[in-house]
């Protein structure tokens, strides 16, 4: 008897085993996304956009049309695509740098315009691919290559509260949530709702996924989970922040 790996059907088997580091959270987030796509039966409608950084390793991850964009530009590329062809289900995938630093203006604009796309942002508190520099989500006191003595919130600010910001500015119809790879069922549920929200044409859908980076955190397996569940949970609250209400017709 052979044991089948529990891979989502929409995953591209040819590109497995994938290139992410052992212990990386990306594999888990992409699994949740893959399961959601399978359950909704939309594999042939999804177009997946990935950013620069570790998210770019997902460029051949799915049996789904994929475009690797420039750093921070996944939201506008997927937005443009969706505007030109609304049959596409556009998924913009990015890291904390791509979403909250260089891509922040595009995230804000996509939110305020209520773009009918689904943005998924992976938060691991630093810039992984380029060697572990500080990110907007780096926590106070956290040592990175550009905060070698620990992040000083006084001079460099506090960790970006992305879903909170999007929830505050997006019009009615938006869906905003923050999940965590420590709770896969919940994360998959959020991602599924974020896709359904796009399919219903309601508004901008955004899910931040708290994730892992043992390579740059320099942590073993046990300490990696500890960092997520004890440290990150202090600054980043898991839950749904915006769920669209029943749609009301204008003027009524």
């Amino acid at each position, binding site marked *: 008897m052979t044991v089948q790996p529990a891979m989502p059907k929409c995953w591209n088997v040819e590109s497995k085993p994938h290139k992410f580091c052992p212990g990386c959270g990306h594999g888990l987030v992409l699994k949740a996304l893959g399961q959601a796509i399978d359950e909704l039966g939309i594999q042939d409608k999804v177009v997946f956009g990935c950013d*620069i950084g570790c998210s770019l390793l997902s460029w051949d991850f799915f049996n789904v049309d994929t475009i690797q964009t*420039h*750093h921070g530009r996944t939201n506008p590329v997927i937005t443009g695509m969706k505007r030109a062809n609304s049959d596409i289900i556009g998924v913009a995938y990015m890291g904390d740098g791509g979403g909250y630093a260089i891509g922040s203006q595009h995230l804000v604009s996509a939110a305020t315009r209520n773009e009918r796309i689904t943005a998924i942002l992976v938060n691991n508190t630093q810039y992984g691919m380029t*060697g572990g*520099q500080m990110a907007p989500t780096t926590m106070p006191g956290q040592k990175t*290559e550009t*905060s*070698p003595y620990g992040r000083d919130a006084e001079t*460099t600010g506090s960790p970006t509260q992305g879903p909170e910001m999007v929830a505050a500015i997006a019009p009615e119809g938006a869906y905003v949530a923050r999940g965590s790879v420590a709770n896969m069922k919940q994360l998959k549920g959020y991602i599924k709702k974020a896709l359904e929200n796009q399919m219903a044409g309601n508004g901008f859908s955004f899910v931040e996924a708290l994730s892992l980076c043992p390579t740059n955190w320099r942590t073993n397996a046990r300490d990696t989970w500890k960092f997520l569940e004890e440290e990150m949970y202090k600054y980043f609250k898991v839950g749904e922040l915006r769920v669209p209400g029943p749609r009301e017709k204008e003027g009524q």
Partner: protein
Amino acid sequence: MPEKPIQGEKRVFVTGNEVVAWAALAAGAEIMYGYPITPQNEIMHYWTRMIPKYGRRFLQTEDELSAGFTTVGGVLAGRRAFTATAGPGNTLMQEPISMAEAMRLPIVVVVQQRGGPSTATVIYSQQEVTLTTLGGNGEGLRVVYSTATHQELFDYTIKSFNTAWKYRFPAFVLGDGYQAKMRESLMFYDPAERGIEMVPTEAYVGRPGMPGADRPPTHMRNTYNMEEELYEVLQGYLADYAKAAPEIAEHEAFDTADADLVVISHGVVSRACKMAVKELREQGYKVGYFRPITLRPMPEKALREVARTAKQLLVVESAQGQLDRLVKEVIYGSTAEMLPLFKPGVGITSEEVVTRVKEIKG
């Protein structure tokens, strides 16, 4: 009073990115603004590690647009400010650099070229020559130094602050990913001990006194209502640039007087060309070596002289004719045959140059 980062002089063994950080410290640079992009990250890594000791500052911005504009801000405040970038980051930088060009602001930008276009490779190229010399929506009123050794990375990073503040044009140190990561020995020195006086900075805004009462207010702009206004301003800038160009332009050359073929290259590729030309001469070929050190302004007089006497010019670069284009503009009218050795994004060895010359010579 924080101590001097380099006292006296000392021979050290470092990577190119580290050289830039140390040179900026030695030059008295007060603040660096930057955003992570390979292959220049170690400039920031080392700057952030060393600045608490020497009382300097740093800001990691949200992207390169911001890194460029914050550098503009730093310079307006009268500080020696600089930034560093590469590839797609350099593309973004062109907007703030245009503002610096338009307003004669002495920003200093270090570029470590990587493969292009778009994300391409993080490793190496000479494909940002056009972008760095003539990028943005202006007339290329900039100074660009193309370095070939770590000693030059050190010397010219210091020099770029002085050139920028003396002539008030944006100044660039154009390196590449190989220089950034390569390890070499060089001499670190305190500029003061070598008789190099750092050109003093001055604030454009925020000076003491009540504006309108104690002193005139500073009103700066980069927009004009009428075409004629813009034309006048640019004529003034172009005249300043033309006057400064012969003082700023630098080059390196040997064996060109009697050469029938001259090899032209810049930056790290010139190391391979230097070796190749020496080897070819030993084998009896009448070849010469020419290397512009400033790509903006080009060393026009010296280059035109070479183009006058040589029959063939071989342009060697890790790009598809970006140096070639600059050379052709300078030597227009020359009857020398222009020949290429173009390898966009790929390193070039001295063996390849020797082979190419022999192939040309038959």
